[in-house]
């Protein structure tokens, strides 16, 4: 920081403190982790906008002088001369009607995770579209090869599953669900686990002793059986699963944070703050938490991966998300049931392993970044 700050005013400091700049340099020095971060971010942002990438509704439609956004808004079919409450834009009657009075802008993949392809060339599960000739691919369309709907947008790039749903669309939505589930679960557990570890480590003594015993009892509850029992009572759903998992996953943070606080609570600068009369809560937040954050951040990606794997295995066993939801675990189960359709298993496997590897690589780079002894030549 060579810049001379103006007198009496808080001159702009660099966006990152020197310490964080060094960490960012260390992170970047791990090329694999750095590239993984970018790839993951691109995939994650794309999947966040999955409705605009793979959907059974057009992104935009222009109908009788009116600009419509079917991807975001439900328009009743009456609008286009039909009678259902929800418009099925894949229905040739509707799409022809709109095309005749305006235009349609479709996403690159014209399937959502739950839309069924009625024109698959063979019995479901059907092979990826690029494995058929054009004649085979279009044989179920009313006009055959000449049908305007037999386009690349209606391809099943990764084939369909045994209910004739597009695998690519399911994978995109499944990725989003898995990552979001993992992120929310990890952040939630971090908040609970870090606070609990902080209190135990900072106050120590009896508080620590009692909470540690409670945690030992708590963590010896078999989570899987509990899930089975709860699944029998409550309807399984994203938030119910999240809640149950959250009840148990925060425990893994307590150990490291508690250890950091136990170590740091007798640091001289903590004593100095105490001597200034700084209240306990402020000391914990301002002086101790930054110490524990390093250990927590290093731990975070591995917890994230663990959460994703848990969700997938629950889905695989059938105790996870409700039937019909986009889930990688369910895709893997289909792959296991339909060994004659290897694209199911392969798609699930590749997406899972790509996602987990990317996260682990990012985690390794994070660990490097926060390692004060790490030197790069």
């Amino acid at each position: 920081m060579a810049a001379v700050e103006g007198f009496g005013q808080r001159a702009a400091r660099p966006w990152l403190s020197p310490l964080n700049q060094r960490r960012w340099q260390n992170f970047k020095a791990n090329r694999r982790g750095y590239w993984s971060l970018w790839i993951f971010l691109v995939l994650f942002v794309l999947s966040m906008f999955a409705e605009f990438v793979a959907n059974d509704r057009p992104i935009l439609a222009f109908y009788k002088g009116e600009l419509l956004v079917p991807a975001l808004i439900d328009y009743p079919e009456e609008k286009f001369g039909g009678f259902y409450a929800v418009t099925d834009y894949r229905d040739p009657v509707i799409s022809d009607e709109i095309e005749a009075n305006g235009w349609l802008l479709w996403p690159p993949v014209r399937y959502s995770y739950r839309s069924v392809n009625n024109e698959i060339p063979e019995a479901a599960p059907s092979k990826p579209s690029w494995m058929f000739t054009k004649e085979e691919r279009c044989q179920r369309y009313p006009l055959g090869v000449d049908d305007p709907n037999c386009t690349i947008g209606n391809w099943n790039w990764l084939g369909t599953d045994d209910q004739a749903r597009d695998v690519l669309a399911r994978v995109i939505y499944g990725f989003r669900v898995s990552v979001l589930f993992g992120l929310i679960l990890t952040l939630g557990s971090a908040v609970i686990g870090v606070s609990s570890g902080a209190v135990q480590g900072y106050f120590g003594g009896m508080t620590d002793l009692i909470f540690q015993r409670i945690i030992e009892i708590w963590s010896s509850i078999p989570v899987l059986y509990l899930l089975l029992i709860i699944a029998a009572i409550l309807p399984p759903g994203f938030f119910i699963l999240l809640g149950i998992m959250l009840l148990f996953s925060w425990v893994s943070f307590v150990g490291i944070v508690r250890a950091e606080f136990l170590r740091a609570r007798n640091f001289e600068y903590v004593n100095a703050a105490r001597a200034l009369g700084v209240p306990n809560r402020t000391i914990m937040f301002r002086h101790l938490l930054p110490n524990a954050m390093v250990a927590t951040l290093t731990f975070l990606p591995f917890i994230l991966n663990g959460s994703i794997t848990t969700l997938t295995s629950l889905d695989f066993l059938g105790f996870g998300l409700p039937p019909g939801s986009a889930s990688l675990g369910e895709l893997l189960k289909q792959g296991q049931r339909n060994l004659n359709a290897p694209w199911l298993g392969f798609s699930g496997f590749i997406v899972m392993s790509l996602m987990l590897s990317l996260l682990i690589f990012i985690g390794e780079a994070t660990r490097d970044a926060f390692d004060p002894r790490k030197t790069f030549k």
Partner: protein
Amino acid sequence: MSAAPLLSVRDLSVAFSQGGRTTAAVDHISFDIAKGETVALVGESGSGKSVSALSVLKLLPYPPASHPSGQILFHGNDLLAQGENELRKVRGNKITMIFQEPMTSLNPLHTIEQQIVEILALHQGMGDRQARARTLELLNEVGIREPQKRLQAYPHQLSGGQRQRVMIAMALANEPELLIADEPTTALDVTVQAQILELLAGLKARKGMSMLFITHDLGIVRKIADRVCVMTNGKIVETGPTKEIFDNPKHDYTRHLLAAEPKGQPPVADTSAKTVMSGEGVKVWFPIKQGFFRRIVDHVKAVDGIDVTVRAGQTLGVVGESGSGKTTLGLALARMISSEGKIHFNGRDIDRLSFNEMRPLRRELQIVFQDPFGSLSPRMSIAEIIEEGLKIHEPKLSEEERDRRVVDVLKEVGLDPETRFRYPHEFSGGQRQRIAIARAMVLNPRFVMLDEPTSALDMSVQAQVVDLLRDLQVRHDLAYLFISHDLKVIRALANEVIVMRNGKIVEFGPAKQIFEAPKSDYTRALISAAFKIETAPTGIVSE
């Protein structure tokens, strides 16, 4: 010198490279050590003296470290050019080292016997029985009493001085020709330091070894060294026989070092000054609990019934060896730990106040800690560190006013206010201690407890900090409780002194009287160890 020197360092440089930048730690130094000679490398922290010593045995972390130039000739062989295998035959055998911190140099999981026997078995291939006998002999030689009982002891069961003796025994095990001692007494009490230095001098004379002695303490150099090399910024600026250097220093830096003793007069004792802080029968007992029900069987009496009075504008010095309870006394008076006995502050009884009730009083009752590296949060800028207290005690201050107070106090402690947005790691030890003092002073306290504020600093910086503290005291009529084991600093600052041992007061009186006519043997031993580096008869001080 007619004979070829035992060790000859020629044109040695050491460089460290990190992140593409290369810093020279040692810059073309040369010195010789003849057989039976003690050479002292003297310099302040960061001068490159330890790095020079470590490169003799190639103990630096390579690759970040490298030697762009130089030779280290031992018996005419260049150690820098030799491979790891040949070096291993020299290390711990012909050249051995003792380090500063005896606690971390010994493996905490092995007994003393295992650690010494290991060396004997490794380098001399001795059998168990023979090695054991030799171990006993060595422990006797380094002055450990009843060595048979100590063989099975673990490092934590020994005192600091005993641990350093064990380290020396390990270093001597193979009858080395050269002993490198890297600040071997810095972590020890002055009384123990005197004992260890006497031991080293005796051993050297008896065994005819050479010694390379690294230290920042010129008192020790005068006592032990034959020749001195003065180092600063990686260069040797002056070399010569000890007497010549001390009597007739040629280089400015040597003169600066020699003049760096804390000077000045303490405030004049004035018993009519207002009492700011006083304690009556202050006791801090830590219970020793045993058994399943954690019954209290005994107490560690860290502070055992002490009366103190600190007056405005005056300094009460508390001296004693480590473990004498002097810091505990200070913490008890500042109500940082629980204690028994009456404590008055500003005419109020504060010994029963809770932490929250104490908070408003903390403003006038400040503490400066020993370690300027540990007492500043590494993640906060200097301004944030200093204004933390203001935010609590004067929450109504506007941001500009707070900033002005920070700027004022930084000027007062002699730091450039422009540096207040930097982080602690960008400052030297002395500057950091000034920041720690600024943090206490910004609240305008009336009483400051100074817990060894100069111990972690270089000698010349110590003198500056002592001057600063004295100035602040005069300007703000502050009451100081100054805790230190360094009698030189105490003499320059305190007008009254308490000598403590095992939680009790050994002697108490005006500083002049304590230093000039000490009454107790213990005080006398402390003073002669500190000023003349002389040992006391057995039994008076700890070992």
